[in-house]
C-alpha cells in the first residue's frame, strides 16, 4: 500500500471530483472534499518524512518503467511543495466558496467543489510527475479548473477576469507544449531525468534554445512573472475570496516549482545562468515586479486587489531568490514559497471573513472594522506584518535568506532594494490597518465577528505563518535541503 502513495496523492482528489458531481448533496460533498484534502495532506507529509529519511522515491505508473513509462518522482523539493499545496487545500476545502462570495445558485455547490478538487489534483500532479508531457497535462487540468473557479465570483467582472486569465493561461500552456515538442524532437525522451542526461549533447542547437525559451516563458506566464502578470490582479480580485486564497497560495507556487525544476534539474545551472545569462534578465524583472507590484498595491482602493498586487510583488521575491542561483538565494526563494503561501492564504481568508459579514472588500467600507471584527482584523494585522517581514513572522525568515544571498553575491544594491521594498509593504498594509482601527465608521459599532467556520481556518494559516517565523525546522530546514539538492551540493 505505502509504495502506492505517490499515485494516490494525485488520484484521490482526481477521482473525488467526479464523485462530488454524483453525490450533489452539499453536506456530503463538503465532507467528501475535506476527506480527500485531508487524505492527500496526510500522504504528502508521509512522503516528505519518507524522502527525508530514505531519499527520493521513484514510482513507475502502471508498472511501466521509465524512460518509456511515466514516472512519478518524489524528492525533497517536490515533497515540500506537495505539502504546501495539499496543506493549504486541507484548510481551505471544507470552507466552500464562502457566504455571499460566489455567484452560484444554492444547490449547485457541488460544481464548485469538483472544480476545486480538480485544480488541486492538477497542481499535485505537476509537482509529483517526472514526465514532461504529464506536466503539461496536469498544468492544463489545474488551469482549466482555475478559470472556472475565478468565473464563479459574484461580481460580473469576474467573468472578464476569468476570460483574460483563460487567454493568457492558454498562451502559456501552448508555449509549454511547443517547448515540450522541441525538446522531445531533439532528445527523444520526455522523462525529466533522462532529458537532463541527454541535453548536454544537443543543448547548443538553436532548437533547444527555442525549447528553453518557450518552456520558461510559458511557465513564467503561469507564475505571473513581471511583465506577464497582467491576468493576476483581476483574477484574484474578482474570484470568490476563498478561491483567491487557494490560487494565491498554490497555483503560482507550483509554477515556481516548475520553473526551478526546469532551470536546475533539467537544463542545469551552467547552461541557464552561465551560457544564457538568465540572471541578467531575471534580476531586473524581479526587482521591477517587487517595486511595481508594491507601488500598485499602495494605490488600490479594494483590499482584494491590494493583496493581489502585493502577490505580484512577492512573486518578485521568489524569482529573485532563484536568479541568485546560490544556496541561500534558492533557499530564500523556496522558503518564501512556503511562507508566502501561508501568509497570503491567511490574508485572503481574512478578507473572506469580512466579505461574509459586510459584503464588501472596498477599503472605504472597512472603516472601524477593527472594533466590529477584532479577531479577523488581528489576523489581518499579523498577516500584514508577515508581508512586511517583521521578525517573528515567517516573512522575516525569507527576507533574511534573500538579503544574505544578495550580500554573498556582492550585490549590496539588491539587498537595499529588498529592504526598501519591505517599506513599501508597510505603506500598503498600513493603509488597511489605519482604516480598520482609526477611521470613524460613521455608524453603530456592534460586534459582528465572522463565523468560526471561516475564522478558524484563517487563524490556522496565520497561526502557522507565525509559528514558522520562530520554528523553522520544517520550513527553512527542508527548503535549504531542497535547494542543496537542486544545486547538486548536497543529498
Amino acid at each position, binding site marked *: 500500500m505505502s509504495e502506492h502513495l505517490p499515485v494516490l496523492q494525485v488520484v484521490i482528489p482526481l477521482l473525488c471530483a467526479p464523485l462530488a458531481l454524483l453525490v450533489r448533496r452539499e453536506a456530503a460533498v463538503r465532507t467528501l472534499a475535506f476527506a480527500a484534502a485531508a487524505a492527500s495532506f496526510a500522504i504528502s507529509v508521509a512522503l516528505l518524512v519518507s524522502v527525508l529519511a530514505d531519499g527520493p522515491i521513484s514510482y513507475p505508473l502502471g508498472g511501466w518503467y521509465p524512460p518509456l513509462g511515466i514516472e512519478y518522482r518524489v524528492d525533497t523539493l517536490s515533497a515540500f511543495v506537495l505539502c504546501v499545496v495539499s496543506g493549504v487545500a486541507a484548510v481551505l476545502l471544507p470552507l466552500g466558496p464562502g457566504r455571499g462570495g460566489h455567484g452560484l445558485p444554492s444547490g449547485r455547490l457541488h460544481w464548485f467543489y469538483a472544480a476545486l478538487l480538480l485544480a488541486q489534483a492538477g497542481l499535485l500532479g505537476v509537482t509529483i510527475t517526472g514526465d514532461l508531457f504529464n506536466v503539461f497535462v496536469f498544468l492544463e487540468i489545474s488551469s482549466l479548473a482555475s478559470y472556472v473557479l475565478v468565473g464563479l465570483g459574484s461580481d460580473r467582472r469576474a467573468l472578464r477576469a476569468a476570460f483574460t486569465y483563460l487567454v493568457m493561461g492558454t498562451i502559456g500552456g501552448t508555449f509549454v507544449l511547443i517547448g515540450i515538442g522541441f525538446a522531445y524532437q531533439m532528445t527523444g525522451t520526455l522523462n525529466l531525468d533522462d532529458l537532463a542526461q541527454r541535453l548536454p549533447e544537443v543543448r547548443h542547437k538553436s532548437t533547444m534554445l527555442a525549447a528553453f525559451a518557450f518552456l520558461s516563458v510559458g511557465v513564467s506566464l503561469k507564475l505571473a512573472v513581471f511583465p506577464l502578470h497582467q491576468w493576476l490582479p483581476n483574477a484574484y480580485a474578482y474570484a470568490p475570496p476563498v478561491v483567491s486564497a487557494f490560487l494565491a497560495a498554490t497555483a503560482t507556487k507550483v509554477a515556481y516549482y516548475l520553473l526551478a525544476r526546469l532551470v536546475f534539474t533539467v537544463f542545469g545551472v551552467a547552461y541557464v545562468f552561465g551560457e544564457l545569462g538568465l540572471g541578467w534578465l531575471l534580476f531586473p524583472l524581479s526587482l521591477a515586479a517587487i517595486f511595481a507590484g508594491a507601488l500598485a498595491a499602495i494605490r488600490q482602493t479594494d483590499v482584494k486587489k491590494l493583496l493581489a498586487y502585493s502577490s505580484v510583488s512577492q512573486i518578485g521575491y521568489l524569482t529573485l531568490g532563484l536568479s541568485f542561483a546560490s544556496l541561500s538565494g534558492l533557499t530564500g526563494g523556496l522558503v518564501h514559497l512556503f511562507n508566502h503561501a501561508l501568509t497570503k492564504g491567511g490574508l485572503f481568508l481574512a478578507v473572506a471573513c469580512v466579505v461574509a459579514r459586510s459584503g464588501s472588500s472596498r477599503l472605504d467600507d472597512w472603516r472601524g472594522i477593527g472594533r466590529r471584527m477584532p479577531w479577523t482584523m488581528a489576523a489581518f494585522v499579523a498577516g500584514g506584518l508577515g508581508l512586511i517581514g517583521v521578525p517573528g513572522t515567517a516573512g522575516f525568515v525569507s527576507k533574511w535568506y534573500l538579503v544574505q544571498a544578495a550580500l554573498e553575491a556582492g550585490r549590496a544594491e539588491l539587498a537595499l532594494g529588498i529592504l526598501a521594498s519591505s517599506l513599501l509593504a508597510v505603506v500598503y498594509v498600513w493603509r488597511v490597518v*489605519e482604516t480598520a482601527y482609526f477611521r470613524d465608521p460613521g455608524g453603530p459599532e456592534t460586534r459582528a465577528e465572522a463565523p468560526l467556520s471561516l475564522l478558524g481556518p484563517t487563524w490556522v494559516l496565520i497561526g502557522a505563518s507565525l509559528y514558522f517565523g520562530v520554528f523553522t525546522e520544517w520550513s527553512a530546514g527542508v527548503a535549504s535541503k531542497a535547494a542543496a539538492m537542486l544545486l547538486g551540493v548536497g543529498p
Partner: protein
Amino acid sequence: MSADAAVLLALVLPAVGALGLSLVGRWPNLRETVTLLAGLATFGTVAGLVPEVAGGARPGFRATEVLPGLELEFELEPLGLLYALVASGLWIPTSVYSIGYMRGHGESNQTRFFACFALSISAALGVAFAANLFTLFLFYELLTFSTYPLVTHRGTPEALAGGRVYLGVLLTTSVGLLLLALVWTAQLAGTLSFTQGGILAGHADPLTGGLLLGLFAFGIGKAALMPFHRWLPAAMVAPAPVSALLHAVAVVKAGVFSLLKVILYVFGLDFLREGQISLWLMYAASATILIASLVALRQDNLKRRLAYSTVAQLAYIVLGGALATAGGVLGGGMHIATHALGKITLFFCAGAIDVALHKTRVSELDGVGRRMPFTLAAFALASFSIIGLPPFGGAWSKWYLLLGAAEGHQLVFLGVLTLSSLLSAGYLLPVVGRAFFAAPSEPGGGLREAPALCVAPLGFTALGCLALFFLAPALYALLEPLVRN
C-alpha cells in the same frame, strides 16, 4: 525560583497583564488593579535579579534557534538590568498617573490603551534581556508596533499623521539600515551574540567598521540621532502618559541602550578606539546635541520643547558610547537612568498642567506656579537634574561623560557638553521662571492642582531625581564590570 526562570517571568508578566486587563476591560477599577499588580510584580521580579547580576551571574535562557545562527536567546547583563529596572520601575508611577490622566481627560478606548502599554513594557524588557542582535531586533520591532496604537490613540487626523511619521521613520531606519547591518555583521563575524569585548575585531577593517557603525547608529532610529529624530516630536500627539513613559523612557532608551550594547558587545571599545572608527559619530552626536538644544529653545509648545530636549539628551548617551572610554560608557549608562527620571517628571508635569488648566504652551504659563505649586516645584527639581546640577542624579552622569571625554583626549567634546548644559538651562529654566515669577496673565484663580493620582507620581519621580544623586555609588558598582578589562 531560579534566576533564569525569573528572567522569563519578568518577560511574560506584562504580556499576561495585558491579556488579563483586556479580559476585565469592562470594569475599569478591576482593569486598573490588574495593571498595577502586573507593574508591581514585574518590577519586583526584575529587582530580585539585582543581587545575582551584581554578583557576576548572567542569568538567562535560550528559547529556540530560529535559523542556523539566529537564536532567540536571553541573557541579563548589568546594562540590560539597569534599563529593565528603569523601564519596569517607572511603569508603576506611570500607571498611577495614567489612571488619573485618562479619567481626568475622559479618553476613550482605555482598555486598548492599557493593554498596549503593558505589551510595550514586555517588548522593552525583551530588548533589555536580549542575548544577541537578532533577539534585540525582534523585540525592538515589537516595541515599535505595540507603541503605534498609543501614539495614534486619539484617532484624530493629527494623531494619524503623527503615527505615520512615527512608524515611517522607525521602520525605515530599522528595516532599511539596522537589518542590513545585522545581516552584514552575521556574515563578517559569523555570529550575532553579544560578547564581552566585541565580535567584529579581527573580522572587519576600520573602514568597514565605520560603515557598519553608521548603519547601526542611524538604523537604531529610536536613538533619535539627527536626521532621524523627526518621529520623536511627531509622537508628541500621544496622551501625556505615553510621552512620559515611552518617549522619555522605554522607547528612546531602548534606542540608546541598543546602541550602547552594539558598541560594547559587537564592536568592543578597543576595536573602536584603535581604529578611530567612532570619531565621526562623536561629531554627529555633538551636532545633534547642539542643534536639538537650539531648536528646543525656540519651541513654544511645552511637550515639543521637551521632545527636542530628549533628542539632545539622547545624543549625550550616543556621544558617551562613541567616546569608547570607560567614563563615556559609564556616563552614558548612568544617563539612561538619570535622564529617564528627570524627563518622565517633566512630561508628567506638562500633562498635569494640561489636565488642570488646559494649557500646552510655554507662553501661557505666566504665574501658573501659584496655582499648581507642587507640579511646578517638581518641574524645577527635574530641570535641575537634566541640566546636571548637584545634588541631583543628572550631575553624576554629566560628570562621568566629561571624564570620558577627557580620558579620550577629546577636549572639543568637553566644550560641547558644557555648552549644552547651558543651553538646557536656557530652555528649561524660563518655564520655571515664568511660572513662579511672572504675573499671571488672567486674574484670579486659586490653587488648582491636577488630580492627586497625577500629582503623586510626579512628586515621587522628582524625589527620585534627588535620590539618584545618593545612589550613584550603587549605579557605578553595577555598571563598572562593563568597562573592566
